[in-house]
């Protein structure tokens, strides 16, 4: 069977308004920017975003007015600095207020792990004494019932995303997908999410994938859509395919400093482009070529 479709169709069918969406689960690598841009093009609203850190993508979505709530450990621009759209949303309610549930990286991982194993929560000793559990209703201060002294413990409430969007190196039409490099919280997220959208650098024959099932990141029957999107993680890197476009992060940081600057950036790189192929064309062949890695046998 095939689960292949266009990115526009996958986002239209499987990410309705109000969805809880996990993205960027590999941290700074393989961030599904193309899928995020399609969410903006289709004008999604009231999304809840879930992720450990989000290197710039969550800032785009906040600036575009797609987001109502964020459960994350870190939202910003890793090499360049603060997230200007997030700042405007939180500090001024522009373009709309956003509720942030502040996690640590570990508690986001544990929240997804809990959902993936059917547990209502997972206890941990991280973040105790910090202000995270005081303000985030999904981190609950409690005591260890197995300890006579009643030692303090934090309960991390399970988070079940409606949909997880993962960008991978390669997948087959049925949704078997190879992901390698830093995995972040992706293994926890594929088990936690109700369904999964795979965007892949390449769609390849099943035999290429199934010769190495250890590298298959998710059970294919949870995959709702497979979309071939070469360059779909740009400007983030994809190990074995292309490097991080550091300058792109710098440029966005500088241009998004003002609301007008952000809106112009968004028109140039998202709204005025029909799809990701047009985005890569706008990026230019020379710039794209310079990022390509020597393709090792993998």
């Amino acid at each position, binding site marked *: 069977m095939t689960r292949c479709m266009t990115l526009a169709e996958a986002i239209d069918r499987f990410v309705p308004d109000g969805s809880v969406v996990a993205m960027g689960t590999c941290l*700074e*690598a393989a961030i599904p920017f193309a899928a995020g841009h399609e969410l903006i093009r289709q004008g999604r609203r009231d999304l809840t975003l879930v992720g450990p850190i989000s*290197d710039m993508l969550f800032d785009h979505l906040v600036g575009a007015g797609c987001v109502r709530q964020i459960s994350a450990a870190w939202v910003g621009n890793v090499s360049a600095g603060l997230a200007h759209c997030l700042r405007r949303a939180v500090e001024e309610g522009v373009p709309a207020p956003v509720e*942030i549930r502040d*996690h640590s990286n570990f508690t986001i991982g544990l929240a997804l792990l809990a959902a993936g194993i059917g547990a209502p929560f997972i206890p*941990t000793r*991280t973040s105790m004494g910090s202000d995270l559990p005081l303000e985030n209703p999904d981190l609950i201060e409690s005591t260890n019932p197995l300890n006579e002294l009643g030692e303090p413990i934090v309960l991390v409430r399970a988070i079940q995303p409606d949909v997880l969007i993962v960008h991978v190196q390669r997948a087959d039409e049925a949704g078997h997908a190879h992901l390698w490099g830093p*995995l972040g919280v992706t293994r926890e997220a594929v088990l936690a999410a109700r369904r999964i959208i795979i965007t892949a650098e390449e769609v390849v024959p099943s035999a290429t994938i199934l010769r190495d099932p250890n590298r298959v990141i998710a059970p294919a029957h949870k995959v709702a859509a497979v979309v071939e999107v070469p360059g779909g993680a740009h400007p983030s890197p994809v190990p074995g395919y292309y490097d991080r476009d*550091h300058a792109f992060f710098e440029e966005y940081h500088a241009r998004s400093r003002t609301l007008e600057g952000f809106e112009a950036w968004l028109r140039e790189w998202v709204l005025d482009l029909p799809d990701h192929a047009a985005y890569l064309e706008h990026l230019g062949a020379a710039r794209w070529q310079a990022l390509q890695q020597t393709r090792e046998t993998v």
Partner: protein
Amino acid sequence: MTYTPREMMIVTAAREIRDGDVVFVGMRLPLAAFVVAKRTHAPRAIGYFECGLIRETPPAALLYTMSDPANVAGAAWAGGLVDVMGLLATGHVDVGFLGGAQVDRFGNLNTTRIGSARAPKVRLPGSGGAADIASFAQRTVILMPHAPHRLVEEVDYITSPGYGSGGDWRTQVGLPGGGPSAIITTLGVLRFDEHGEAYLASYHPFTTPEEVRAKTGWDLRIPHEVDITPPPTEAELQALRVYDPDGVWIGEA
């Protein structure tokens, strides 16, 4: 040999890594400190990266982020975040690096917001892995440019707990890790006394204890005898500049 305050800070941070240490590296400046330590006095140090990587050798190219392909190439392990955090939570990390917008005299760090929840003045990125490192590492080292609005009397939000309100606070709240061992700034090195309060342990060669006190937002305790931080050696500076020849991280902001 000339060097900048930022180079002094990174080299001093590198010296906090002992040979054979497991280091929770984190992002930005600590990436450079790890490389300097590996290439000078601590060749056997091991680096943890919360994206899921473990390194036994320094990366071959400058890293902008821990997930850059240059950090994957030659990695000793590529797993997941919960794997690496699990190693941290079970006591395997000797030293973890932290940075932030504000730190107080007890080493409590804020990377979440300036201002109150109701009226935030500056929304900062948040914890990332910092709260986890602060909770579990045997010791932590805090890196921060030295300024009175950064070394403050009271942080607006405790993202990463240090010694809380001092004394045995960490034990009371149940934190397993050892807490901060140093705040390394562009002007000096602060260490912590038995009550968990920071004092000036050394000042960098280009400044004075008076300047350090003037640029600290609380009444910093300065002992009678304060050392001068040993300046960077040629080997340390070379390791740093070979790693970052264009000054991406070591250039003055």
